[in-house]
């Protein structure tokens, strides 16, 4: 049984096609007919343009936490007296199909560690998430991206970090070397391509070694929690950092670890469904209470919450785990170029001065 295969660059499409007959295959691809345009993970169909050369604009969280998901359906039924009687039909979580994500990056997969803690590891287990999580395998690229906005090494990851991955992909000049890291991934590689020759194998090993030594980002994330608490009430600090924030949802929607959701009942005529959909703590309505009071009325409180959640609340609750995977998407996509590294990095600077 093959544990390592080499896919020549010109055979990639046919290998992916073959792979897609074995399992639901998702790959990073262009979402627009523009090679530098936005990218995201899409289900593979022959002919789509893969985008392995750079990090995707959208994270892969939608595979595990879709932007919209039906939790249950309900139906009003009129009884003979004319008043409305409600019957509710529950929808069980759909059977998740075995899925392979081919070409994720280590930051993308590492983000799942955070999501797992929230949705899978208890005390409250989310059956919808767990179903999909169990059935999804990840083939992760050893990342060669040298982007000034990346900082995965600062938050516990790294370009060659394979935590949570089932297969490793090393990009060589003339193709891809794919290696199964776990037993359940091995059958996938059977009959796909030849095993690599020795020189390619050695080259790949060398690249992995180099990548794992590479330090990406220099943000100091130690002791963020107490620093954050110190800063919590210093409004001047937050004003000086994020006054330009537009309070839009870009940073949270492109974030692989942001998982906040909203639940709404959408009714049409006599039928309806209960939806779970992405929400963003940057929105005014996220914390708006029925009374009209809003505990986070301005963007300063909202942005502070985002930083606090990732660098203080999650680490304190989950033994130091950070709620950030260092992918840098929020920095890249921010319309007004707020840099979370600056906001976090400055938490500790002269925090008692003000």
């Amino acid at each position: 049984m093959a544990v390592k295969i080499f896919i020549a660059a010109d055979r990639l499409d046919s290998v992916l096609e073959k792979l897609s007959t074995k399992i639901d295959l998702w790959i990073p691809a262009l979402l627009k007919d523009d090679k530098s345009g936005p990218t995201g993970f899409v289900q593979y169909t022959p002919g789509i343009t893969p985008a392995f050369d750079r990090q995707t604009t959208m994270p892969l969280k939608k595979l595990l936490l879709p932007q919209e998901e039906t939790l249950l359906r309900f139906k009003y039924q009129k009884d003979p007296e004319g008043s409305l009687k409600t019957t509710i039909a529950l929808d069980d979580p759909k059977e998740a199909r075995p899925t392979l994500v081919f070409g994720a990056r280590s930051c993308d997969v590492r983000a799942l560690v955070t999501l797992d803690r929230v949705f899978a590891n208890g005390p409250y287990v989310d059956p919808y998430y767990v179903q999909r999580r169990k059935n999804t395998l990840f083939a992760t690229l050893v990342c060669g991206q040298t982007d000034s906005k990346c900082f995965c090494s600062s938050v516990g990851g790294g370009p060659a970090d394979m935590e949570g991955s089932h297969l490793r992909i090393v990009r060589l000049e003339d193709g891809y070397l794919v290696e199964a890291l776990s037993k359940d991934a091995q059958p996938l590689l059977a009959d796909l391509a030849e095993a690599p020759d020795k020189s390619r194998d050695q080259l790949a090993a060398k690249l992995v070694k180099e990548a794992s030594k590479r330090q990406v980002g220099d943000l100091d994330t130690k002791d963020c929690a107490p620093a954050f608490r110190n800063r919590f009430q210093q409004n001047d600090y937050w004003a000086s950092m994020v006054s330009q924030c537009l309070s839009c949802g870009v940073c949270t929607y492109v974030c692989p670890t942001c998982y906040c959701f909203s639940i709404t009942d959408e009714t049409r005529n006599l039928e309806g469904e209960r939806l779970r959909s992405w929400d963003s703590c940057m929105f005014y309505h996220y914390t708006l209470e029925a009374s009209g009071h809003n505990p986070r009325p301005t963007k300063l409180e909202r942005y502070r919450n985002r930083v606090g959640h990732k660098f203080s609340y999650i680490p304190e609750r989950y033994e130091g785990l950070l709620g950030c995977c260092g992918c840098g998407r929020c920095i890249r996509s921010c319309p007004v170029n707020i840099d979370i590294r600056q906001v976090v990095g400055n938490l500790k600077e002269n925090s008692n001065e003000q």
Partner: protein
Amino acid sequence: MTDSNPRSSAPAEDTAANRQGIKIVGFLCNWCSYGGADTAGVCRFKQPTDLRVVRIPCTGRMDPLFIAKSLIYGVDGVLVSGCHPRDCHYAVGNFYARRRMEAFKAFLPFMGIDTRRFKYTWVSASEGQQWQKVVTEFSEQIHMLGPNPGVELRSGEILKVSSGLK
């Protein structure tokens, strides 16, 4: 179809038009066209049955987004009717409406929605016959156009249309 209120879905009558599934929404001003439609009914003028009427206080209340929402979600036609210009119950409501609807009419086709599915007209409360004519003509036009395809993508379809934008 646009209404999410569970109480408002009376079962449709079994007529030829309904079997074909054509739905037209009419937004009628309380002070004139709604009366005009009533007059037409009282006079027993024969009218097509695929129009669902929404009564509004004045065409000045007419938000073009009512029309947008209807057409986006697959209503086959939208007819707006109010008082003749200079006859508005509130003096100027229909003047505002006229500009908005003209602009909206010109805008619709840009987004790929057939502008023939939307019509606005002026009918007073006494013009039962005129109402019959308007609604018959519009209904015929919508039947000629057939069901509104809406804007929904067929499931799973990935469209990539080259924009040609610089």
